[in-house]
């Protein structure tokens, strides 16, 4: 059937024309486009379909490019911290930590002991909230509406806890260079202590309600198999790599802050498919609870901001540095280069979602569209982190 490309309405745009150059004649080219319920924001995937099968997929990015790296050049180090809360609103505190840690590493600033513990507790709480957000949204992709209600119910409890010290619900700018902005008062610590048993009582119910549900198991088992070598070739880290049996966690590989003193395991799964990634994230929620518990006991007294902490007009000293943190989605890296000027000379943000998504084209070749959506959800994507 000749394709009536002359009709202006069906002419496609720059990316589809570029994609269609190497498309097989007679295959259907679809946009799993920017405005799509399963892309969690504005990720666009062009797929070449043969009936139900996805023959070829190409993610197109940039629909939420917010120029973080350009902003870093016009702002001082302290002014850039709110940006860190908005790069990845799922696990914003990990990005705060990455940027602030990089600046401290470059300037050689020592953070007081209590601030390290406050950072670990809030970052792990944020990781649980991020995993709950992923869990609810992933089940929503696969068509189940109830789990996201439970997930958000628990997540709201966490947001109420984190809202007290940080002041916002989602886009935190709570860390400062040299410590944190505010201490965790008794009320907040009490709530965290009450939250841990509550969450532990919920996880078995999640396991019965969802994890062992035959429909979910049929949808994600054997779907989206990612070999370890593929992870290595595309640089996938975090639960995506751990779901393929790679025991790599930045908290263990490049230990920072007080993680060496905390006893927790790094869950990996040999299943290498969407089920493996699902199990890894669910176990990580329990591990984060264990970390928070130990931090609550070991936390010393003291102030949370180092004496003479840098003022907002503080200039980052000359030199370059690279600091990596384990975020909810993988290895978050911040590369700072400064020539001693008022603003940072160059800031490069290494987003885990960016590398995890780059292997989607490879993994989704030849699957049916429903599985491609299940693979996309299992990669746990937050689009502003990918587009930066």
């Amino acid at each position, binding site marked *: 059937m000749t394709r009536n490309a002359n009709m202006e309405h069906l002419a496609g745009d720059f990316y589809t024309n570029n994609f*269609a150059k190497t498309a097989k004649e007679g295959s259907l080219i679809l946009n799993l486009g920017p405005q799509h319920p399963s892309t969690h924001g504005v990720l*666009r995937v062009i797929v070449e379909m043969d009936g139900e099968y996805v023959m070829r997929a190409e993610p197109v990015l940039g629909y939420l490019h917010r120029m973080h790296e350009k902003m870093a050049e016009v702002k001082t180090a302290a002014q850039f911290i709110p940006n860190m809360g908005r790069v990845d609103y799922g696990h914003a505190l990990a990005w705060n930590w990455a940027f602030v840690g990089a600046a401290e590493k470059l300037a050689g600033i020592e953070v007081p002991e209590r601030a390290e513990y406050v950072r670990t507790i809030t970052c792990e709480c944020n990781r649980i909230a991020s995993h709950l957000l992923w869990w609810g949204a992933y089940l929503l992709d696969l068509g189940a509406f109830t789990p996201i209600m439970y997930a958000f119910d628990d997540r709201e409890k966490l947001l109420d806890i984190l809202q007290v010290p940080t002041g916002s619900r989602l886009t935190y700018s709570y860390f400062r260079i040299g410590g944190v902005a505010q201490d965790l008062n008794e009320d907040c610590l009490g709530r965290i202590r009450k939250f841990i048993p509550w969450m532990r009582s919920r996880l078995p119910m999640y396991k019965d309600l969802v994890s062992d549900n035959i429909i979910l198991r049929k949808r994600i088992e054997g779907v989206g198999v990612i070999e370890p070598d593929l992870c290595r070739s595309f640089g996938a880290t975090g639960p995506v790599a751990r779901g393929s049996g790679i025991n790599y966690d930045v908290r263990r590989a490049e230990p920072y802050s007080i993680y060496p003193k905390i006893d927790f395991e790094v869950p990996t799964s040999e299943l290498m498919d969407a089920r493996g990634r699902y199990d890894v994230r669910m176990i990580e929620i329990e591990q984060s609870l264990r970390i928070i518990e130990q931090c609550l006991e070991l936390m010393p007294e003291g102030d949370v901001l180092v004496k003479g902490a840098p003022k907002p007009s503080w200039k980052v000293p000359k030199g370059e540095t690279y600091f990596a943190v384990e975020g909810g989605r993988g290895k978050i890296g911040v590369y700072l280069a400064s020539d001693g000027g008022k603003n940072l000379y160059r800031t490069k943000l290494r987003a885990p979602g960016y590398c995890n998504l780059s292997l989607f084209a490879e993994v989704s070749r030849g699957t049916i569209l429903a599985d491609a959506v299940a693979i996309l959800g299992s990669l746990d994507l937050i689009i502003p982190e990918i587009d930066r």
Partner: protein
Amino acid sequence: MVFSWLHLAIILFLVGGLLFAGGPLILSYLVAPRARGGDMGMPYECGMRPYGGAWTNFGINYYVYALLFLAFDVDVLYLFPVASVYRVTEGWLPFLEMFIFLVVLALAIVYFWAKGVFTWPRKIS
């Protein structure tokens, strides 16, 4: 043809049905404001301009599903008369006959199942 109240009821019922279905359509056509122009006429594809028409050829395995549906559609056709008289029959014989009729049809599903029509393996071409 003798006119009886039953016919009137049927006609009224027909008109009621038409009104019930057509009413909201006509009403909304009259009362609702209408938006026109811009990309209203363009097929919606996640906010992007679609590439090429959707008039492409389909995979063969959909044809098999159509066959299966047809088999069971006709099957139900035969069950209607049986259902209407089933109450007055007695003994197990009619049930047994119907059971054999259904088992023969179920063989079609077993055959397709064995051929792997219901599994959608990954096609790495």
